[in-house]
């Protein structure tokens, strides 16, 4: 055998070079409880449809809206012939709607709107998919199901762990589940979000003291300590709830670097205020002002979790209440301890000043790292 039998060459690096986008379609199904119709939107790349249906009628290597529109019926026929929805008992006929177009990151897509007319409100929604698998076995259908605001996703493929059939049990999740899930996420975020914890602790440390004649004195009663804590916690809650809501509803959108830097700055200033006191009587003012920034931070997390569109308020409420529960747990753990320690000689130099200085140091590093994008925390 001579070298010529290689025929053509596979570059060494061929496997390492990142690719064009592979072929994907985006299928979004929306349902509401009690309704037997499922509304569907299916985005399919024109490039893929052209291969199957020869959309470029005049072969000028450009696909125009006129060429697509003229084949509207064929497009629906081709695509809907490769999708089947069922309600668990019987297949749901697919009824074509409007054809539109949209741009994705890799080119133009046909957007097919249609609905599935099920005989009854589906309890178990089945999806069978085989679009393009005969032409390109590496094609995938990215499916999203929004049922009463709860989003679920699946990848449809001809073989392998993902499959061409997906079934969704719609009895399993309820609005309560959405709420619970997001409340859990909120609590989790407080526990792993050291910046929020340190901010809260910085505000709580002086709550068992009172400022008199330029020195810190222990508060006399549990009642006045608790009132101070209550004011701080309430102010923080109200303010971060405001910005969390505004951001989650897309009314305000701040760059995450600004928000994250702002949060670090708030921790820095709150802790420094314990070392060199400026705001001493109205800690709640600090809590309120800086709480606004923290709310944007929570919204960033909530955005990353993927908000169910139909249950936005439910998810938002769940997440916020989760955050409050997490915060309350911190208060319950910290306040009794510092209340008992407030008389000790150690408390003021060791915990208030020493602890706050440590927090300030950490927050300073965060702040510089986040402002300059150094990735220090």
């Amino acid at each position, binding site marked *: 055998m001579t070298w010529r039998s290689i*025929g053509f060459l596979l570059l060494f690096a061929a*496997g390492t070079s990142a690719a064009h986008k592979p072929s994907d379609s985006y299928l979004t199904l929306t349902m509401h409880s009690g309704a037997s119709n499922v509304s569907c939107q299916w985005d399919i790349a024109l490039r893929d449809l052209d291969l199957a249906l020869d959309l470029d009628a005049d072969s000028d290597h450009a696909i*125009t*809206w006129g060429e697509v529109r003229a084949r509207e019926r064929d497009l629906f026929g081709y695509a809907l012939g490769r999708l*089947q929805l069922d309600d668990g008992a019987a297949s749901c006929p697919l009824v074509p709607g409007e054809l539109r177009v949209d741009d994705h990151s*890799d080119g133009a897509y046909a957007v097919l709107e249609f609905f599935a007319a099920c005989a009854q409100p589906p309890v178990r929604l089945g999806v069978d998919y085989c679009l393009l698998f005969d032409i390109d076995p*590496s094609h995938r259908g990215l499916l999203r199901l929004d049922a009463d605001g709860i989003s679920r996703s699946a990848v449809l493929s001809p073989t392998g762990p*993902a*499959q061409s059939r997906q079934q969704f049990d719609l009895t399993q999740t309820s609005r309560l589940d959405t709420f619970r899930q997001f409340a859990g996420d909120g609590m989790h975020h407080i526990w792993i979000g050291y910046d929020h914890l340190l901010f809260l602790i910085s505000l709580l440390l002086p709550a068992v003291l009172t400022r008199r004649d330029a020195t810190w004195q222990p508060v006399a009663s549990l009642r006045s300590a608790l009132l101070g804590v209550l004011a701080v916690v309430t102010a923080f809650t109200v303010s971060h709830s405001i910005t969390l809501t505004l951001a989650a509803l897309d009314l305000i959108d701040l760059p995450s670097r600004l928000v994250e830097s702002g949060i670090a700055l708030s921790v820095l200033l709150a802790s420094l205020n314990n070392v060199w006191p400026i705001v001493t009587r109205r800690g709640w003012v600090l809590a309120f002002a800086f709480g606004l920034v923290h709310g944007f931070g929570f919204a960033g997390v909530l955005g990353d979790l993927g908000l169910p569109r139909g249950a936005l308020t439910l998810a938002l409420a769940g997440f916020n209440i989760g955050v409050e529960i997490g915060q309350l747990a911190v208060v319950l753990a910290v306040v009794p301890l510092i209340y008992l320690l407030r008389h000790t000689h150690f408390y003021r130099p060791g915990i208030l000043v020493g602890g706050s200085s440590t927090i300030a140091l950490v927050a300073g590093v965060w702040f510089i790292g986040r402002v300059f994008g150094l990735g220090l925390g």
Partner: protein
Amino acid sequence: MQYCRASRHSRLAAAVFAAAMLVSAVAHAAPHRPAEDGVVLERLSPATVALRSLRGESAALKTEAKLVDALAAARRYVELGRTHSDPRAYGYAQAALGTWWSSDHAPPELLVMRARILQFRHDFGGALAQIEAALKADPLNPEAWLLFASIEQVRGNVRASRMACLKLIPLADPLIGTTCAASTAALGGHAQQGERVLAAVLARPTAGSNSERAWAWTTLAEMRERLGDAAGAESAFRQALALAPDDVYGRAAYADLLLDLDRPRDVRLLLGVDPAQADATLLRAALAAKRIGDADAPLLLASLAERFAEARARGDETHLREQARFALELDHDSASALDLARRNFAVQREPADARVLLESALAAGDRQAAAPALDWLRDTGVDAPRLRGLAGQLAKEMRR
């Protein structure tokens, strides 16, 4: 109604997908009906047109195709896919193989073709299994040895790669054997000799095809670039691109050199404005645009972010190196970059993979995370002053 056979399994994908799809849903424009019939929605690139006409031909032979015809069609798809780095073409190649894709009795040529497709999808284990079977049946198969060398090089197994290149030398054209051997020699600490030998072979007349010579020039360029010879690397890249102007790998590698030389404007000139281009070149275009402060920088960035989100949604992990660079250099998120770079280095271990891992570890201040790259540098003895510099910097930072 025509329908497909469906399996009865169901599996919910992770909730991450929902987030990714939400992101991708937000990033593009809203669905609409254009006002005029004449509005051009999509221009088919020459590569797409070529694929389209190939498809027209092979659809005719589809039913009960003879293996030799199926392989010929698959080969042409793969060649186009390789040049343009287009995964769809590899999908068409698989489809062209039809039932041969999964048949148990496969001759060596079929095994090698399957390996080629699997390798593109970064299923290196699967690809190597096919190659081993091919070499068992035909120990003198040059394509199989070349592919073997290529995969082992990508996986960072320099010794295994060199062994395969030595097997290849008597079976292949001197240009191919030398490029293979020189490339692995450079990774094994013999870059100077490798560079000399390869440059000498390239100076001689050869029967090699344009794409083979372009590959050799690109390999030479990368060797010189690692040795710090920027001018020599640039002239070799230009030779390569004169032979294969569309080659995505070569263009991306040349763009990297230009970025390192702080010549972002030349990167923009090299890559042009094609929003539908391959991820590899789109990333370099975005890096250059951001450095210059070009008006389209935010658009390029958003487009890349959307592509990565879509890749995550489909469960595609072939872009990890590019994603890590995106996170590190454009998103300034060193924690994510480090995570991506580590996962990438677990799969592929070439100098560029080591570099992004070292840089991410440095940015995140986590020397421990760079250990696999440091070990690899030590074990292979690769000649790469820049990588050695990064490793030294990492050691110094940590001592502080």
